[in-house]
């Protein structure tokens, strides 16, 4: 006459509500450990370093995007197009012998400018998806037109090589940059007024406005942060290849499909709230490393690129479901 009244199905549901996430995480970890242990060359120091290095580029852009998502401004769909324009600008600078510093400054200036405009449009009430979808078209168009859609290459040795292929004590510089940026971003979120405002406005935009924190300036700031991260990744990527082309971040190139989707996947798989106000850049960094681990495993297992793109899509879907479930459980205890 007690809970038995409610029936067995409800008990199972209750169990899943309390332990569902643990069960889910345990299953994923077990599966992962099984495949990792049965795949030769997977758990070697060299391969682990490869995984983190591969996570670095997409992870840095993910960290930038996390600020946008946490502040309640959803996603920028123009991440890879911003990177495309910046990589063209940087490579043209390098090819015309302006040197690393000026080329980098040019790429960053473009990122700040385009980020600010997108942020302003979002801040005055534009839908982030629509605004950045439009911006994506414009940015890619400009990048493609400016470079005549050609590969721009500049000869080695050049003064950006340290960023692209250099390493310290065997750790690639891009990995070090990833770690440094992750730490700075996490500190910025937790310890600065700006970071606090990101969380507050993301948690409740109306209360944010009522307590003097307006989304207009916030949207501009977070879009600049995201765009600057895109620019940095573009510069590092170009330095690595000593060249650039507008489509370097599109699905034709690279391993696991569309770069923007990969970046969004790092934010989602890390378990940041899509609605904002809850999450961290640390989560995004771990999300990037997890995705990279799975991708690397699939490469070693000999999966085709289609299957790897599919796995990223599945990870996004499952993480959204799992984390929504987790948060609902947490809230209902109030």
């Amino acid at each position, binding site marked *: *006459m*007690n*809970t038995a*009244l*409610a*029936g067995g199905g*409800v008990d199972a*549901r*209750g169990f899943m509500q309390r332990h569902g996430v643990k069960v889910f995480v345990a299953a994923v970890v077990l599966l992962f450990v099984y495949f990792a242990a049965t795949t030769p060359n997977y758990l070697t120091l060299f391969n682990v370093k490869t995984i983190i290095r591969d996570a670095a580029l997409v992870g840095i852009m993910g960290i930038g995007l996390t600020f946008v998502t946490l502040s309640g401004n959803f996603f920028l769909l123009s991440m890879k197009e911003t990177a495309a324009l910046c990589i063209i600008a940087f490579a043209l600078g390098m090819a015309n012998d302006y040197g690393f510093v000026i080329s980098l400054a040019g790429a960053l200036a473009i990122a700040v400018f385009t980020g600010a405009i997108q942020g302003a449009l979002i801040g005055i009430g534009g839908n982030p998806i629509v605004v950045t979808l439009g911006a994506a078209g414009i940015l890619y168009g400009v990048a493609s037109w400016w470079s005549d859609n050609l590969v721009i290459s500049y000869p080695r040795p050049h003064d950006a090589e340290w960023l692209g292929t250099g390493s310290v004590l065997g750790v690639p510089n891009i990995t070090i940059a990833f770690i440094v940026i992750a730490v700075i971003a996490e500190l910025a979120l*937790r*310890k*600065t*007024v*700006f*970071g*606090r*405002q990101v*969380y*507050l406005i993301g*948690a*409740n935009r*109306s*209360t*944010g*406005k*009522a*307590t*003097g*924190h*307006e989304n207009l300036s916030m949207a501009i700031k977070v879009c600049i942060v995201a765009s600057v991260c895109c620019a940095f990744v573009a510069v590092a990527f170009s330095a690595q290849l000593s060249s650039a082309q507008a489509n370097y971040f599109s699905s034709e190139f690279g391993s696991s499909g569309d770069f923007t989707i990969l970046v969004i996947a790092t934010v989602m798989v890390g378990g940041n709230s899509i609605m904002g*106000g*809850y999450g961290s850049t640390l989560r995004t960094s771990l999300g990037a490393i997890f995705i990279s681990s799975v991708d690397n495993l699939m490469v070693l297992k000999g999966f085709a690129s289609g299957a790897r793109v599919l796995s990223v899509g599945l990870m996004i879907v499952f993480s959204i479901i799992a984390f929504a479930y987790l948060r609902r459980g947490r*809230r*209902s*205890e*109030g």
Partner: protein
Amino acid sequence: MTAWLELRGIKRSFGAIHALQGVDLTVNHGEIIGLVGENGAGKSTLVKIMSGFDADFEGEFLVDGKPAKLGSPQNANAIGIAIAQQELSLIPTMTVAENIFLGHNRGPGVCLLSTLADLSRPLLEQVGLANLSPTTPVRRLSIGERHLVEVARLIAHEPQLLILDEPTAALGESDSRRILAMAQHLKEQGKSIVYVSHRMNEIFKITDRCAVLRDGRSEATVPSRELNTDKLVALMLGRELGAMFPEKPGAPNPVARFKVERLRADRLQSPVSFEIRCGEILGIAGQLGSGSGEILATLAGARKAHGGALYDMTTGKSRLPASPRQAIRRKIAYCSPDRKHDGLFLGRPIMENLSAPNLKKISTMGLLRAPPERGQANDIAKTFTIDAGRLDQEASVLSGGNQQKVALGKWLSIEPELILVDEPTRGVDVGARAEIYAKIRALANQGAAVVIASTDLLEISNLPDRVITFFKGVRTGELAGGEITSDGILRLITNPEPTGFGASAIPQAS
């Protein structure tokens, strides 16, 4: 006579929190039971269980003396229990008739609007909306009418028991009366009603018995005619409550601190001027839609002004703040009537809520400093009797009363000189209510100028030193000192009807 419904030893825990620790309740045919208790006493948990939204409970559930299976809203429906929730589930763009039959899948597959309209008329009649055309879109209805339509929709399923969860919380005086009349009418037809409300006068007026919950236990079930405010409050709190309303200072400061000049705000028919004095609580009385709330929001920059000035007699500034940000800079604090919408960051820790209006105070060069933030939060928590041990928890875990204390208390961080509070105690239980009144008075005594707007006659006639009344956007009077009575205010904020209405509808100060 056996009860229609009987709950025995209902228990429910959320982790370590025992929300219900053995609740008994009986419901007979044709009776209205008031379910009362402080926020956090377990009312909403019990209501959720009774309406089938919460399956994870222990205890017996008998209908007509036989065990019944609850655990889903469908089961509750089958037993004959329906709930009208505070948040309405009507679709504004559809007509009344369509809304009533939404989700019904009996009858023919194709249904003409005129058929639905004919079917819905008797239901609308039952809830006192006989004059409403069933083909009106719901968005044209007042909030009160929407509540009644929601009930009409529920009784289409012919439930035996109807749970009304704070049906009048967001309603003005006249809409509330319609809800009460509807409840009486359904009772006369043999239906049972569980009525959840914080409004004492309603509880006394319509309920037959009161079930009092305290700390998750059923404290007592008492016939309502044996109760008065003091007795009921004592049962709810487990102790005698001192005075509900704080003492007013003898002679308020006559010097104006702020002057509102020819303010043109939404809903106001003509410009309004008045002054706000240091150490005084000014009340703005009016029903929903009277413009009283709009005046406060406009003074705080939360709504666009159509003209006017706000003179600060100390600094000489005269412009109305164009945004909350500007208002905060001028040390103007504003609490909207909807704390969940724009008064709190529910998903963030209480401490962050308390420091949000003034991050400058707890930072140097853009870097947050933890000690001053915690220090300030502790101070505010002490002043507003918020449990200091919970400052790191999310604001969403707090009860309505404690949430309101956080929503109000956060403004201490800007050291406000003008405090505007719209509906200071909406959805707040009686114990926290007295505390909030005391704090508002204390802020005034410390020299702040305070303005409150309220549709609650009890508080608007007892808390302020001076009251300005509004009816449909027109200023209808000003009362001060001994002139402030609930009768006097009620007359000024309602359209004088030829028949008048029963004095019993007028709450008296406790």
